[in-house]
């Protein structure tokens, strides 16, 4: 009997006919040999633990428990105060690691769930996955760097990605298992597992974004068109459909329905969070109206004639909030159904009738192809009904409420921002709404205050009214470039050398949610500051949306001021949260294209390369969700540090280095195995900053790397010192740590800095030659090849 094998076969006597057998009883077609397989394809929990331990030794977890007890099982509630053990034996410290892993698992599940859901939708909307090739055109040959790096797979079609997703899902389950009561008792091993989870999150995001890009033909590359952003861009002369969430197929169906029926002059589509970003990639007509912090404000301002929600980062009280302003809601995802009826299969007109008549406040439609018609028809009918009402407070009611405030402070106690609403109400009662309007931007729109106000003041409505009275909302009109997806290989070829040599001082990646300590303006400040200094600024998620409606003196947003190229001073909309995989990808491609490192199944070596050479730093100034936790873990394991805002202390864990511990900052010289002190670069891996003035110089500092050339180090040091002077009013205390020789000193300040090194640090200076003779602990050697991994030493020193 002939034993069939997987593979491609010619058939004798038949010209031009080939048979492809993909899989026989579990035996897969061997993958074309495109690169040598590295040591860790599809790593499981223990496989990259050695790399995690290297990171965790230098950057051990710092824990800030949010709760000193545990009630995860019925032996509790356990009092763990003072690092006691619970009834199962776990310490408070390990409990923090456990919690972090749990948060990362939720975040990763959201991204991977999104990917899986996307595959189901793609199969029903676009056909079989193996018929959808992965093709980014001639500018992108390394189509899926994370997939190549982690899984060791070079995917050709979406079906290949689905196979990789199986690996990811299995490993999430294994990690979930480790959360069970008992078992793991080491905080460090929980953190290693959180890193594993973060890595799975990164590859899952790549799979999700590539899938949606290929299936829905999202455009790629620079020079994307400028699109409308901000609450003020929603056109209420039309019927407004407002989409919220993170899974765009239902929104794409709305776009199609509007286009197919020539309804552009009757329907405005706006959205918040990642669904708006992804739907906007499908059709630039979708307005990026709001990040997460504005979600409730858009709803309560009554701007939406029909709300369509999918998954993640959607308010859990959306239905009751929408009812207040008579906006029907369509739930399109099984993760989020709010006890409404599933109506797929019903006559669309009957569903519309039920929604418009108010018979039901919302419906569930799980097939995205059923959403467009219902949403659009509902919005058009609701417009006529809803426009009869004014959803804003009347002037009289605004005044009445402001006067009724007793300044009791109950709201302030509930407010995560600690906002003194009473004080602003007092001003409003005196006829000045400006304080409330200013608070509108600092308020994250959580609605906690309203529930406790003894005077029943609708505080969100007060903010919205004040923001209209002062023109804030009407003027919240900006521009964001449409998302561009992956960075081109050609762009990496151009910037690889300047990035690694340091003449482009770094990549600053603002990502994540809108839980900012002090409003959205800080986002603009970060982007503007770094872009104007020549850093590359790729952005994703809500932080990107919030950057888009702030303007400079000439009325331009950062997207109008800077090009969306991955080059010096570029400001890029990469896409939604899942698209931030392309930022990881850019770093991996630098290692691959510029440094010729093999990336296949070779995670640790590439992470080591990035940690020691590539000046990149993420910033999630308003990080809020569990997804932000898993995203950060994924960046950190890959060797990219991140700065988070002050609310992020509530994630419980940061990874901080100790520059005072010299022994922590030795690496190997891969040429000969010599142990070399490189100084605290990068000093931290995940760090909470208190204010924006602290955050900005800190990010510049975290772009320094062991392998910086003198030219690069001097540029990076220039920015670090400058930014300290600008935002903190003086020199940083620790700049001398980063000086290896006089060549590292910023040119313009050289004499002054040499003076300080002599007087404050006791270094010896040859003033004739303007050279440092003695002092620096770090030496620079141009052929130095730093690595933290012993196995990468090429020839051991005798």
């Amino acid at each position, binding site marked *: 009997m002939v034993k069939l094998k997987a593979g491609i076969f010619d058939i004798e006597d038949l010209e031009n006919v080939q048979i492809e057998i993909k899989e026989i009883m579990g035996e897969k077609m061997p993958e074309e040999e495109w690169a040598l397989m590295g040591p860790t394809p599809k790593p499981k929990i223990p496989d990259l633990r050695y790399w995690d331990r290297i990171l965790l030794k230098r950057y051990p977890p*710092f*824990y*800030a*428990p*949010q*709760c*000193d*007890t545990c009630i995860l099982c019925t032996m509790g509630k356990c*009092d*763990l*105060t*003072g*690092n006691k053990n619970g009834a199962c034996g776990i310490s*408070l*410290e390990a409990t923090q690691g456990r919690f972090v892993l749990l948060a990362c698992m939720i975040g990763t599940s959201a991204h991977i769930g999104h990917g899986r859901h996307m595959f189901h939708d793609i199969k029903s909307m676009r056909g079989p996955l193996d018929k959808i090739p992965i093709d980014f055109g001639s500018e992108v040959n390394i189509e899926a760097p994370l997939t190549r790096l982690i899984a060791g797979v070079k995917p050709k079609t979406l079906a290949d990605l689905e196979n990789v997703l199986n690996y990811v899902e299995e490993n999430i389950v294994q990690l979930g298992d480790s959360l069970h009561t008992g078992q793991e008792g080491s905080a460090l091993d929980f953190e290693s597992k959180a890193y594993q989870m973060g890595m799975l999150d990164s590859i899952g995001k790549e799979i999700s974004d590539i899938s949606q890009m290929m299936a829905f033909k999202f455009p790629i590359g620079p020079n994307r068109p400028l699109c409308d952003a901000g609450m003020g861009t929603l056109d209420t002369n039309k019927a407004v459909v407002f989409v919220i969430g993170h899974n765009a197929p239902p929104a794409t169906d709305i776009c199609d329905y509007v286009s197919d029926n020539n309804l552009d002059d009757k329907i405005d589509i706006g959205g918040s969070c990642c669904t708006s970003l992804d739907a906007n990639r499908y059709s630039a007509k979708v307005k990026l109206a709001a990040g997460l912090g504005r979600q409730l404000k858009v709803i309560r301002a009554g701007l939406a004639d029909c709300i369509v929600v999918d998954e993640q980062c959607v308010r859990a009280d959306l239905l009751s909030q929408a009812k207040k302003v008579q906006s029907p809601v369509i739930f399109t995802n099984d993760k989020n159904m709010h006890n409404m009826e599933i109506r797929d299969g019903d006559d669309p007109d009957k569903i519309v009738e039920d929604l418009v008549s108010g018979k039901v406040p919302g419906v569930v439609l799980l097939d995205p192809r059923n959403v467009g018609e219902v949403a659009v028809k509902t919005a058009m009918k609701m417009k006529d009904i809803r426009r009869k009402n004014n959803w804003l407070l009347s002037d009289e009611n605004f005044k009445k409420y402001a006067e009724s405030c007793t*300044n009791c*402070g109950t709201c*302030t*106690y*509930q*407010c*995560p921002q*600690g906002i003194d609403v009473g004080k602003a109400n007092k001003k409003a009662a005196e006829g000045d709404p400006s304080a409330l309007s200013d608070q509108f931007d600092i308020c994250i729109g959580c609605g906690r205050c309203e529930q406790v106000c003894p005077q029943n003041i609708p505080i969100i409505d007060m903010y919205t009214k004040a923001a209209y009275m002062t023109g804030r909302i009407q003027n919240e009109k900006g521009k964001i470039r449409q998302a561009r997806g992956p960075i081109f290989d050609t762009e990496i070829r151009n910037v690889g050398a300047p990035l690694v040599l340091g003449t482009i001082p770094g990549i600053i990646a603002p990502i994540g949610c809108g839980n900012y*300590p002090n409003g959205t303006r800080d986002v603009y400040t970060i982007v503007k500051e770094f872009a104007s200094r020549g850093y590359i600024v790729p952005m994703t998620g809500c932080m990107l949306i919030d950057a888009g409606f702030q303007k400079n003196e000439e009325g331009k947003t950062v997207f109008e001021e800077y090009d969306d190229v991955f080059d010096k001073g570029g400001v890029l909309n990469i896409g939604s949260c899942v698209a931030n995989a392309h930022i990881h990808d850019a770093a991996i491609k630098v290692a691959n294209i510029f440094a010729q490192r093999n990336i296949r199944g070779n995670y640790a070596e590439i992470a080591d390369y990035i940690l020691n050479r590539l000046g990149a730093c993420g910033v999630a100034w308003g990080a809020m969700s569990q997804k932000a936790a898993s995203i950060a873990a994924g960046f950190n394991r890959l060797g990219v540090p991140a700065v988070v805002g*002050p*609310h992020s*202390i*509530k994630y*419980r864990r*940061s990874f*901080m280095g*100790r520059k*005072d511990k010299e022994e922590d900052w030795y690496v190997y010289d891969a040429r000969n195995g010599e142990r070399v002190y490189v100084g605290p670069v990068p000093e*931290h891996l995940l*760090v*909470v*900053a*208190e*204010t924006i*003035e*602290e955050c900005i110089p*800190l990010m510049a500092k975290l772009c320094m790397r062991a392998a910086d050339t003198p030219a690069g180090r001097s540029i990076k040091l220039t920015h670090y010192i400058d930014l300290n002077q600008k*935002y*903190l*009013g*003086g020199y*940083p*205390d620790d700049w001398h740590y980063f000086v290896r020789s006089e060549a590292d000193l910023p040119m313009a300040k050289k004499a002054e800095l040499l003076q300080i090194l002599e007087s404050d640090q006791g270094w010896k200076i040859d003033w004739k030659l303007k050279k440092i003779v003695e002092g620096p602990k770090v030496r620079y050697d141009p052929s130095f090849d730093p690595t933290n991994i012993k196995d990468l030493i090429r020839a051991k020193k005798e």
Partner: protein
Amino acid sequence: MAELKMAPFNAGNVPGPKMGRVTAPAVIGKMIKRAKRPLLICGSNIEKHGSIDKAIEIGKKGIPIAATGNAIVAFRKKGYTDNVKYALLTDLVNCLCDPEWKGLDGKGNYDTVIFIGSLYYLVSGVLSSIKNFAPHLKALAIDPYYQPNAEMTFGDIWKKQDDYLAMLDEVIGEL
């Protein structure tokens, strides 16, 4: 002075069985006075709370100051930088939790840390680190709020700035 409330400023911030004791300013002052190695940690709300001048007075009594967030700018504006050093709060507390740390002056770790001008929720987090992982440290909070993770703390007085400043004067009076 009326009895101050022991209500966390963020109502949900109830950490567990061990919660900070609302303590009279004079007692807190005496605790600081008794400390061998005290450190005043001034946060980014130092101007908003109106407590910058009081912090400087405490500094002038010889207690070293770590200015976190952008608080260093407030000190620079006031022209007082004698014993003030910038510190990143989480970095500082990470070091404080290590008994072997050499301190900002190289003379060893501290025995008492006093928080003022705090960004409430951030400092609440790092106070929890100290409470749970740094038994060698006493943590006191002289913010206008009740700080549940401090060992001793003022009660809520954020709505009455004059009373708050008077409480700080009482603390200073003991130094």
